[in-house]
């Protein structure tokens, strides 16, 4: 597994001073700013208690795991930009994605510059966060000048953590799902409080459907038209500390039920999003729903140009962006997929917009983080491994692709979904992204036709 090592200048801490408490989040940016300013935000939290509750819940998500594996604490990512701070994290098993959004109403301070960084979430800081009182003033500093200026100094505390690539893969899949989601339910304050009460005790071994039955939110084993499929619903218990504080909640789901999300409206410019994969054994990093959109290798200058544009704008609506720049929706989709494959884009359900993360622009990550795409390209390396059989009506193309001990029949092109006779497709029926055989056929024939 490829790793990035972080070196924090000092641990994050909640310190007391004459002006009250200050929350200093030590940062390490993989994409360190060129200027000497390494501070993204400094200012006052308008409701420090609520922010602390959100951050504590985020820490809980990071520390949680829902499959039998050792907990591996990872540090959340914070993105500053467009007048907002976004703290993002995954559970250790990568099946839960959480984000605390602080909107301008929650912050009273200065955005020195935009940026994305990892934040050191150590135990003493979590401890200190839980001790912030309701009316206590707290200053927030994300990143510090000293991080870059005094790294070699004697005071430097190096705490090395590993950033697995599955986080970047998870960010790609999570934003892909979020961008597809529709709002399914809107819960009032009282209903949000009762959300977990409706959850069956213990671990949910089967899929449950969340719905409003009369005035009550209910989890049922069978769904209806307005029900939301929630796989591994017991993971929602991560929200137990925030639900009583929320003013309301919105529940989202993808049309195919492969992911769901709950957005808690905490008031005062605070929102907390918790997205769940389709099941506890499915991490976001293993999903391949965006692979199809990444097939066309867009010209590098396109990607670079879009990257620069989004970097400047920081948020954008894909539809409006396409209209403004006269780009076909499919092209916008491919652009977004390629950039998000590098971890650069996130999606905000409240505004229906993408937001930009200032991570390194590394195009090699697209292939490296998507082994199915890589394997498909390997198949293409041998001319005989992907063979055209026929092209039917509407551009439906039949191909034979070499598999393990068998040739697979693959159908691509046309308005219908691609299909394959392989085990992956038969087992998942296309719900977890296309297989390498379909990708290879699409790369050979579809992209060729487009050209």
């Amino acid at each position, binding site marked *: 597994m490829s790793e990035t090592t972080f070196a924090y200048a000092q641990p994050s801490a909640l310190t007391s001073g004459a002006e009250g408490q200050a929350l200093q989040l030590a940062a390490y940016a993989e994409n360190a700013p060129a200027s000497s300013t390494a501070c993204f935000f400094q200012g006052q939290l308008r409701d420090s208690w609520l922010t602390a*509750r959100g951050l*504590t819940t985020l820490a*809980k998500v990071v520390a949680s795991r829902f499959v039998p594996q*050792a*907990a591996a604490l990872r540090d959340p990512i914070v993105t500053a930009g467009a007048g907002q701070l976004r703290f993002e994290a995954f559970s250790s098993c990568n099946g839960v994605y959480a984000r605390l959004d602080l909107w301008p109403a929650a912050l009273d301070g200065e955005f020195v510059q935009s940026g994305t960084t990892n934040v050191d979430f150590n*135990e*003493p800081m*979590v*401890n200190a966060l*839980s*001790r912030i*009182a*309701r*009316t206590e003033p707290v200053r927030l500093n994300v990143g510090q000048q000293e991080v870059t200026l005094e790294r070699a100094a004697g005071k430097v505390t190096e705490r090395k953590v590993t950033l697995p690539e599955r986080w970047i893969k998870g960010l790609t899949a999570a934003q892909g799902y979020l961008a597809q989601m529709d709002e399914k339910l809107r819960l009032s*304050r*009282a209903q949000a*409080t*009762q959300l*977990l*009460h*409706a959850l*069956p*005790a213990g671990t949910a*071994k*089967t899929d449950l459907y969340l719905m409003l*039955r*009369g*005035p*009550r939110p*209910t989890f*049922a*084993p*069978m769904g209806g038209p307005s029900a939301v499929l929630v796989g591994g619903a017991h993971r929602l218990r991560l929200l*137990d*500390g925030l639900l*009583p*504080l929320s003013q309301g909640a919105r529940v989202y789901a993808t049309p195919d039920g492969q992911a769901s999300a709950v957005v808690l409206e905490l008031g005062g410019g605070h929102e907390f999003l918790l997205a769940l994969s389709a099941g506890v054994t499915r991490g976001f990093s293993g999903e391949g729903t965006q692979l199809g959109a990444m097939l066309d290798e867009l010209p590098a200058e396109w990607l670079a140009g879009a990257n620069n544009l989004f970097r400047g704008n920081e948020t954008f609506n894909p539809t409006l962006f396409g209209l403004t720049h006269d780009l076909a929706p499919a092209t916008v989709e491919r652009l977004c997929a390629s950039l998000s494959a590098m971890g650069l884009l996130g999606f905000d359900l409240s505004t229906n917009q993408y937001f930009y993360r200032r991570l390194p622009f590394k195009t090699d990550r697209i292939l490296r983080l998507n082994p199915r795409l890589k394997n498909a390209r390997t198949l293409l390396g041998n001319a005989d491994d992907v063979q055209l059989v026929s092209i039917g009506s509407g551009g439906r193309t*039949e191909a034979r692709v070499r*598999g*393990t*001990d*068998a*040739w*697979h*029949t693959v*159908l691509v092109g046309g308005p219908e979904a691609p*299909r*394959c*006779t*392989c*085990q992956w*497709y*038969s*087992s998942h*029926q296309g719900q977890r992204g296309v297989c390498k055989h379909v990708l290879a056929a699409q790369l050979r024939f579809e992209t060729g036709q487009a050209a």
Partner: protein
Amino acid sequence: MTKVEVFEQVIRQHGLAALVPFLLELTKEDIVPIRQKTRQLQRELDRVVEIKPNSWGSAMTPEQDRMLFLASLRTYSRKEAMANQFFIWGLRNSVQHNPAAFWQVLECARPTWLADWLLLRSEANAWVIVEYPLLRELEQRGFIEFQPRLFALAVPSLLSNLGQELSSQAAPPSNALDVITERLRQDKTLLERDLPLLFDFNTTLDGAQAHVQKARPSHWHNFIPSFDWAQWHVQNPSQTVTWQQVLGRLVVVGELDRADLLTRCLLALRRDFRRPLLTWFKELFLSLKPTLTERLARQNDLVELLAHPQPLVVNFAIEQLKNVWLEPGFNLAPLLLYADNILTRPDLKTGLKTLLGGLAKLPRQQPAQAPAVALVLAAALAHADSAVQERSAKGLATLLQAKKPLLAAEALAATRAAIQDQAELLAAPARLVLAPWLTAPAAATGPRVCYTPLAHFVPDISSNTAIAPVADWHELLFLTGEILHYDAPAAFERWLDGLLRLQDQLPAGYAEQLRPYLLQVLPYLKGKSETETQAIVAENHVSGYWGLVQALLLGWAQGFRTLRVPSVLVQTDHDNSDPLVLVERQRLAAAEWHLHARTGLPLLSTPTHEPFWIAPSALLQRLLQYEAAGQLPNAADLSVALARTAYAASSPEALAMLAQLQHEGLRELLGWFLGAEDTEPCLVSLAPKSLVQRVATGLRSLLPGEGAAGSTLAEALPWLWAVAARTKFPDREFAEWATLPGADYPGIRSPWVPAWELKTETTKHVAYWLSGNPETIHRTIKLDFASRYTSQDAPSPLLLYSLHVRFRGMAQGHWQLGSVVRSLSSLVPHNLSALHWHVVRSVAWTDKLESTERDVLLAALPTLLDEGPAFGESTTLLLAVSLLHHAPSCRALALESLLGASATSRLQPAALGTWLGRLLAAEYAPLARLADLLPQAQAVSPETDDALAQTLDALLPELPATPLRSLRKLLEPYADLVARTGRLVPAAVQGRLGEWRTTAALKKVLDNLPAPTVALEAA
């Protein structure tokens, strides 16, 4: 010899004495090769081998284990150290057995990863933590730096270490607590730096303790009587010392500050720690017995705890605050702020009642707070618990009725508006208290909705439900993957139909394209040549229900050259799945024969409309196709087709086609079946068979797969009449069929309703090995099915509704039933009665059966969610036992079935209530299981409320006069339903309620039954 070879020789042949100098002399260049050799030796030696005959163990000696650990310590980089296979055990063993060697090697290696490794391992396994004294020594010698989390994780086990040390003494002290406290007092670093860490980190503090008792000699106890456990305990009493006792003692002796400890406890309680650890901090706080003044001084910390997600913390905070908030120095504003966030938390009940009771008293002392308190109390009305609602309502009533008005006009209006907002959610008790401030309930104003079960069911045979046939070869090919991986009967029917229809359109060499699916079914075909594959497939014999699908696939891959389906072994003597599996095999065998003979004819039983209905016109069209092709229908196929045909949706077009049918017997049968007349069918008699015919039939039945398919249509016709009649009239008696031989068999002339009764069996267990031979009596309440026909076969294997009668699967759940019940129910969608009787007697004959039985129920219950006729007796009983099932998943699915059935008008509330009442009265299951479900079903829709009320109307009179446990929980929703629906309480229920009224616990809820406002219809 190279150094690596020397190293290997030392490990294999020498001891630690030779290793240490070797490790100390390693140069920088030697590190990597020795590291690799170390790992290789570890892999090689750390494996289980047969040490001596029948004795298995590790190939590594304990000394080799320690040697390899020291080599790891010397050569490992951070990467290897942090890997999963490097454990703390090695470190502990080395320190214990070879301390000098350990410190020497450590001094030489000085690994930078040591502290991180210790932390990683300590976090990964709470049971294997490095000892605190060793950690301190490592720190003192400069091998690690102080890391709060690492030290915090190590401190709790210190107590256990001290306990072991004292126990190993020749004469353990009788005052272990004092001795341990005294030892800890000597260590100022522990007291001042490390003990406070216990309040900041999630540790195992709550479970740590010192067990002090003189160690019993391990080898003699079998020979010396006085050393047996019981006597040893008497002679050497054990002492248990907990951290709570130690900390308390340290406070008493002045080593710890009491005030600081109290504050730390409250700060620790703010954390999201494990529940037992939070309980531990709570108990420590209580054990210090804080005074009123001390609690008042910590009012902010206590109020902060109200935001905690764990109810135990919130309840604790409320309990600590309840005497404090009446004190002059208490600041009420933060309390009201925090209280606002917890008032509707469903997990808080007792604490909330205390809080609300306290808040209601406050306005008398602090009138200025009255408006805020009133709004908080009104917000609490939204709580789901009726007792909390009632407490809040009483507080509001006190405020609103105060002799000296506490609320100004504006605040009064706001409070009344807030009360009115919650009116819909109020349970009967709160509604009663707040009646003067509520407008008339909605139920009394609108027209009353009355639930009525469906009288006549007509399936939806329209374009909305039409099933699209498989369009082409590609769709058929990819559908194969779906049916091989999913239990999807509808997809399977489409696939089967596609196979038959598209047989002539398959591309050349299609079998090669099926190979990926063959590999999924038979993975061992991988690597086999085409010839080998052909031979294996030709010889392969699949079995079980899923073997039918696989047999069709294998046959397809070889062009249906041979008939495979009839020889699939779907049922054996020990197989308790279901007799309908045999019918399904006959049907699929018919399909395979058509494919083999390339007739191009479809199956008659392929559904045309969702979920499994056949349009009458489609059936007739297919029959005409058969006649045109000169083929007679297969009897099993026709039998299933009749069971699936939507006879009630017959059209003039279908009847016109009927006239074209040449076969007189079929025309007569279908004429009656599709006709609107409600006449009794005229069953034709069979002509007696000649001896030769009888012998031939008998011999034919011995052939595998033969049975119904082998019988001629003329022979099968009377039984097809019986199937059609029982499909159309599931519950009717056909009195005129008495002349038909075999018509007395259950399910033919009369519907099959197996005789059963609720029986109580008691078994007595005597524990002879215990003094006094105590007896335990187990009671089992079972549904005891007795059938007179268990040794007699049905007259024909076509009789879909009679096959279960003699089936041996009674009181024996089998996993295969769970895997096939959904598919089999699709064969008989009009009348699931027999199948459901079979499910009930196999897997729900008593409470608390195993997971196999549960899984069968979980598979059977979804069949209740489809649209269909009103539930029969067996389906209602199946629903009743599922609602009372011990598995929550079953109860949840049963609740869905109940709600779904009331929405589709399939529910029979009176029958369901009666069954439930009888089962509960017989104590088949605890009443609480049902009572806990009901609140989830309330207020879903007026129809559902009325259906539930009808169910309870029938249920309550069945319950015994002596109230069952948790009856109150059943009566509360009943009172609410009566209020919502405006129903009159029936006389039978009134009588039973009157008997229960004498019970004090029920009096209150019975008094709350609201007076009916709408008269119940006479019916």
